[in-house]
């Protein structure tokens, strides 16, 4: 009789646990930091046995298409979404995201880097928590610089970059002075050139949302970009994105590479990089106008309004973006693998600074980026390497195609800018800007 009762009680307990257990679906991008999060998530489920996790990992453009469809139609397929700093202000304003107000008392919100946090806040409400943040910086080969008889300043100018790239180029030996993004796309060449253009005094729109590609600042930006790559860039540069340039730099084919700070960990990794011990870092270049050519980006975790498990989702976000998670990664994978660019405490940690030679430049780059006032002249938009409006993905990619055509010589710089001006004017008119 006792045994029977125990069995019934056991079954009841099992049944009640399975009924109470909540499964949350997490949509995330495929990169090293996210894979580590997935690997270490057993720590979260051990602390929260009532929550189980399902992962959907995708390439970022596919993920963006999928989660945008889901959030816009309130499909409810996901409880946690990985989104970028481009989406957060737009989606937050649309009311598609749940405010992250249950991250816990010990979350230490004030430790989040202000530049990153401000980009994720709409009307004083935090709609996403940063998982990792990045800016852009100069990565260069110290040995080639020395050979060229030059020394890279911590804050180089664009003129110096051009001079150094030319001096480091040895086309016969297959070494090119500079590698930059040339592949068309709003997250590809447009991200780099828009951030560059800020330091040249250019802007996408004036205060009345009038496109500004017919300005002399844009002419100077694109001319510089095309001439620099013609002089010192690798062949086929118009097809190169982050990965192609990473491969070129790691195999010793590039003297200077200006790209995401997250690349610092890749190019100094002795396992994959042939030049790991020869890499130096500097801030993104400027033209003495008060703005540097660095961008700001963060992959963040957010809860869509359509999720019915927002409490569990917030518990997960709190765990994944906490200081404790950083310590867990450091313990299991080493300090160099800790997701960078979100918390001030990480940059006060001597162990991290020792393990990541690019840490200080990353921090300075992030802190100097101002998405609210990204340009020399005033603008009506938020965003450094993008304009945080829903239309930007479309017009950004179309403009990127014009820039890419200028690089391959299919269009002159002037033709590419004229064409960009026309197509952006048309798109903005169609979208009825300025919005009342």
């Amino acid at each position: 009789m006792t045994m029977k009762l125990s069995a019934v009680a056991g079954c009841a307990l099992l049944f009640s646990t399975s009924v109470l257990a909540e499964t949350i679906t997490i949509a995330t991008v495929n990169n090293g930091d996210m894979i580590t999060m997935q690997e270490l998530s057993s720590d979260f489920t051990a602390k929260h046995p009532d929550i189980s996790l399902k992962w959907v990992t995708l390439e970022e453009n596919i993920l963006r298409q999928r989660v945008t469809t889901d959030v816009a139609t309130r499909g409810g397929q996901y409880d946690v979404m990985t989104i970028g700093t481009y989406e957060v202000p737009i989606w937050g304003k649309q009311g598609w995201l749940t405010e992250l107000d249950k991250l816990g008392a010990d979350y230490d919100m004030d430790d989040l880097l202000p530049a990153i946090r401000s980009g994720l806040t709409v009307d004083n409400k935090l709609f996403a928590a940063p998982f990792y943040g990045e800016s852009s910086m100069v990565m260069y080969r110290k040995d080639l610089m020395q050979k060229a008889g030059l020394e890279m300043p911590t804050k180089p100018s664009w003129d110096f970059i051009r001079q150094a790239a030319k001096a480091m180029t040895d086309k016969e030996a297959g070494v090119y002075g500079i590698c930059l993004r040339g592949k068309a796309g709003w997250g590809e060449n447009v991200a780099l050139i828009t951030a560059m253009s800020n330091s040249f005094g250019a802007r996408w729109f004036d205060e009345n949302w009038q496109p500004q590609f017919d300005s002399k600042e844009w002419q100077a930006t694109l001319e510089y970009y095309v001439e620099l790559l013609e002089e010192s860039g690798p062949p086929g540069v118009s097809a190169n994105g982050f990965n192609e340039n990473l491969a070129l730099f790691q195999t010793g084919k590039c003297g200077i590479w200006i790209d995401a700070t997250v690349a610092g960990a890749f190019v100094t990794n002795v396992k994959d990089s042939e030049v790991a011990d020869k890499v130096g870092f500097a801030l993104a270049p400027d033209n003495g106008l008060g703005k540097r050519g660095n961008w700001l980006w963060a992959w963040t975790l957010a809860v869509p309004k359509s999720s019915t498990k927002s409490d569990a989702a917030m518990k997960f976000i709190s765990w994944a973006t906490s200081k404790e998670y950083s310590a867990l990664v450091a313990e299991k994978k080493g300090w160099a693998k800790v997701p960078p660019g979100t918390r001030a405490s990480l940059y006060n940690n001597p162990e991290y600074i020792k393990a990541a030679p690019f840490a200080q430049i990353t921090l300075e780059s992030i802190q100097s980026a101002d998405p609210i006032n990204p340009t020399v002249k005033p603008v009506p938009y938020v965003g450094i390497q993008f304009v945080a409006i829903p239309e930007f993905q479309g017009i950004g990619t179309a403009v990127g195609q014009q820039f890419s055509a200028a690089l391959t010589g299919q269009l002159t710089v002037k033709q590419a800018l004229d064409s960009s001006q026309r197509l952006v004017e048309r798109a903005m008119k169609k979208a009825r800007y300025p919005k009342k």
Partner: protein
Amino acid sequence: MAINKSNKSKFIYTILAWGISGLIFFPILWTLLTSFKTEAEAISASPSLFMFDWTLENYRDVLARSPYFDHFWNSVIISLGSSLLGLLIAIPAAWSMAFVQNKRTKNLLMWMLSTKMLPPVGVLIPIYMLFRDFDLLDTKIGLVIVMTLINLPIMVWMLYTYFREIPNEILEASRMDGANIIDEIFHVLLPIALPGIASTLLLNVILAWNEAFWSLILTAANAAPLTAFIASYSSPEGLFYAKLSAASAMAIVPILILGWFSQKQLVRGLSFGAVK
């Protein structure tokens, strides 16, 4: 002399055929080879075809990180299920169009085919909302329905072409012997058109297996097929070429094997009625 000339041209054609086949197969071969390289070797500026340190590390990593067999099983159910369901609808449709024609049949066939000309993204939002309202998001049955609808025009067209090759007199004779429509289709038409039906089935299994737009949009964690599995190894920021190649190899090998064993059937079916 004539024999020599014929042998020579045969030799040239053979070389040409091998050359073209090699060209088509090379990307698949390269993917397979890359899947056995390290990430560093995969991006090497001077890549080696065979002389590299072969490793199974990528396969180990991929299997450890992703539930490959769940994705594989989803792909099998979706591709086979949609092809069989499609056949159930397409066979009677093609029968009526081939043997009970009227003046609108040709227009109807063209209209069916024209639906394939619509870019899928044009109906993305309505389909997504329908799926949401009918609780079909991230379900295998939802994907089976969508794949069936996508491939139905091709199935009907293919079967219509095969059925048109079958003399109407054979069906008339069966009717005179007292066969009803069901008997006519199942006992007379299907046995004769079996090669065509088999090749239609195989082709649609391949099309559904490789479909990526809807299967990526409409699934999440439960019904995601192998196309979603591959997409999880692509990244614009980080080098995953070797792992991506391993994932691709694991996704395409089953369908390559199916294609290899059924190639005779496929060629026979696809060229059915091509030469009169």
